[in-house]
């Protein structure tokens, strides 16, 4: 095989080129006896051999985001191990190259480029914050890579080089607000969040939807990431008496926010007012403490406590691999879907080529997802159910409600921009 190629390269007369091509074609045809000849399933020079395929894992394992992203890394490694145990992807074992984004967006861009240009990985599972995704996006588009992005996020994006395995904003928000207004009769809302694009865009959609339902927003405020003094907003909340506190506080600020809410006498178990969040998963509750957030509602697509076969097996395997005291949040589960969705797309395409994987991705179904059934939409987001959970003292959510149908992902929602 190699010799034939050398001939082509050294003697460029048209006749020898034609002869060479014919020879290659014949070799390729006979090669189909073993269906997994590396050159066939990989025509673009990715890191694929006859036995292995390399992928990248790109999350922060140091810095402020490490606490959130570690779960995603663990989930991706678990999925990769399970896929390998089942025989890999197109008969190839997955090997991963892990890089640290260090909670620093330029570092994410640097490492993404390294994975794509130097390591030529077939797919990357990674990123967490919107800022890191925005930083790597041009890199993935320029070098034509494939990113599986696990976090629920603000939408307004649809890249051919990204599969979004978390929910986009409308999926999380609309079902949640419909639920509180129908089931709890909520009429007035106080919106608050950390000051960056995801909470702002989410609250924008929330406000439009609240007003569409004929209800009222009585306050909307933002605090810088890492902010720890929420007393003034808590006082305003007490003054304006909204039915619902709609909170999109992110990261370490959560600890201060919920502790101060409790200290100020707002008892969420009595639902006066009720608190609905889209940003606190089981991971965050570990920091906040179950006693401080007990009674709050969360709208997302996955809770560790989901009672179905897939999830029970997933939680068991996760704990076997990473220890009994881990918790699994929404994003961790979404990260777990990444390698499985990629495997399904590669096998459907019969090739690791990025372009073919992209084309085969829409319509991919996963019946084994811990959250239940998911399907990839034409717009590269997932059809998924939205669920409401209520925080318990032990740091778990109790499932209260789930949408009957899968919610359609709509990253550019008409009438909400």
């Amino acid at each position, binding site marked *: 095989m190699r010799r034939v190629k050398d001939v082509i390269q050294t003697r460029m007369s048209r006749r020898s080129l034609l002869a060479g091509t014919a020879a290659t074609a014949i070799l390729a045809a006979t090669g189909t006896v073993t269906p997994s000849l590396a050159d066939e399933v990989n025509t673009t020079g990715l890191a694929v051999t006859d036995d292995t395929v390399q992928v990248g894992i790109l999350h922060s*394992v140091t810095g402020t985001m490490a606490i959130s992203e570690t779960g995603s890394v663990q989930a991706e490694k678990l999925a990769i191990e399970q896929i390998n145990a089942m025989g890999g992807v197109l008969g190839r074992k997955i090997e991963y190259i*892990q*890089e*640290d984004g260090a909670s620093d*967006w*330029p570092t994410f861009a640097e490492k993404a480029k390294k994975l794509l240009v*130097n390591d030529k990985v077939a797919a990357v599972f990674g990123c967490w914050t919107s800022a890191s995704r925005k930083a790597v996006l041009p890199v993935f588009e320029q070098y034509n890579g494939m990113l599986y992005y696990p976090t629920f996020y603000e939408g307004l994006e649809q890249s051919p080089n990204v599969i979004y395995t978390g929910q986009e904003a409308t999926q999380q928000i609309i079902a949640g607000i419909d639920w509180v207004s129908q089931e709890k009769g909520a009429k007035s809302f106080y919106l608050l969040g950390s000051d*960056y*694009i995801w909470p702002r865009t989410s609250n924008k959609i929330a406000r439009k939807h609240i007003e569409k339902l004929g209800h009222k927003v009585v306050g909307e405020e933002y605090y810088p*990431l890492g902010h720890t003094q929420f007393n003034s907003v808590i006082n305003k909340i007490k003054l304006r008496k909204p039915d619902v506190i709609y909170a999109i506080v992110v990261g370490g600020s959560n600890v201060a926010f919920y502790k101060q809410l409790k200290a100020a006498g707002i008892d969420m178990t009595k639902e006066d007012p009720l608190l609905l969040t889209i940003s606190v998963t089981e991971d965050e509750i570990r920091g906040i403490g179950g006693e401080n957030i007990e009674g709050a509602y969360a709208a997302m697509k996955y809770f560790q406590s989901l009672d179905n076969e897939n999830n029970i097996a997933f939680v068991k395997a996760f704990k076997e691999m990473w220890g009994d005291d881990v918790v699994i949040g929404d994003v961790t589960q979404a990260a777990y879907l990444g390698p499985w969705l990629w495997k399904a797309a590669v096998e459907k395409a019969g090739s690791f080529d990025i372009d073919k994987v992209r084309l085969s991705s829409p319509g991919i179904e996963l019946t084994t997802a811990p959250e239940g059934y998911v399907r990839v939409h034409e717009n590269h987001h997932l059809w998924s159910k939205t669920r409401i959970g209520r925080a318990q003292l032990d740091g778990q959510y109790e499932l209260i409600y789930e949408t009957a149908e899968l919610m359609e992902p709509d990253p550019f929602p008409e009438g909400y921009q």
Partner: protein
Amino acid sequence: MTSIKSFMSRQELIGILVIAALLFVVMPLAMDIFRLNLFGKYLTYAFIAVGLVLCWGKCGILSLGQGVFFGLGGYCMAMYLKLEASTPEATAIQSTPGIPDFMDWNQITALPWFWVPFNSLTFTLAAIIIVPAIFAFIIGTAMFKRRVGGVYFAIITQAIAAILTILIIGQQGYTGGVNGITDLRTLKGWDIRTDEAKYILYYVNGALLIGVLLLSQIVLKSKLGRLLVAVRDQEDRVRFSGYDVSNIKIFVFCFAAVLSAIGGAMFTLQVGFMSPSFVGIVPSIEMVIFCAVGGRLSIFGAVYGTLLVNWAKTTFSETFPELWLFGLGALFIAVVLIFPNGLSGLYRSYVAPLVDRIVSVRPRTGRPDAPPPAAGFGAKTTTKPAE
């Protein structure tokens, strides 16, 4: 040769030639384009480190806010590139086509007035130099005229870095917030993301750095350079000699600011985005570390220090993604404990004598190390510089 000798000793000439050879010959041959582009990114930090050598090493003004100027330069460049990337065709999906995407996400419907001039490349290039210079001038005048110095000045610069970061993050409709200004594509229609463009930008960056080193060398060897050192060592004596110390300090602070801004602009061009994570306190302190590792008295040392620290950062983190920060920490501790004068200190005590023996086989009389007399610059100074 006399004109060169007037501002550069033989040692320093060799130093600059070695850096030039490293930048223009060795690195492009030794590295593929990906590594070279990374190396180019490190070199943009070297601009800051060189500025810090003048400002901190020579004149004794420790600024913990150089990220501010790096950011200003970088943001000016990014604003121009972003406007060019935000054509109405490219942004047709937005509610308001033709403005940068992050403005659209923040419900801004018209280009803010201070963005408008950045449609012009000439204005942008001028702004990269002038905006940080004016900003540094205001800070410098406010501080040095009132004789604020030392630790107080360092703390104030740090506060400014914090304020600017908060401002950028808070005004995300105008600045892109935490995400920064991303997805930059072309400069006057020239795609800056191709490999070819990366090579060209790398060489432009290298040439600018050599230019900056030469300029710094001229400043250092001039009368002003001697005054800088004098201000550091005996501020009062300089003042009693009739010089306005604050003007000297303001000048060097502005000079360092402009160098940082040039680095910032080159950074944006090579990396393709700018974000507040280069403006704040942590990156500003990191920049001081680059300078310290290199040895804060040598502009060449600063370049090597920057390269070493960043290379170590990349290599450690690629090899040990979960432990690399410890490796980097160990490097810094080693610098402080084992070679407090940084790389240039090591060079001076171990390598330089060797090089000297080889280079000056026919030594002229006396001390080969002594700086040449400052002939061309009216040697009015009576005190010998402390170095």
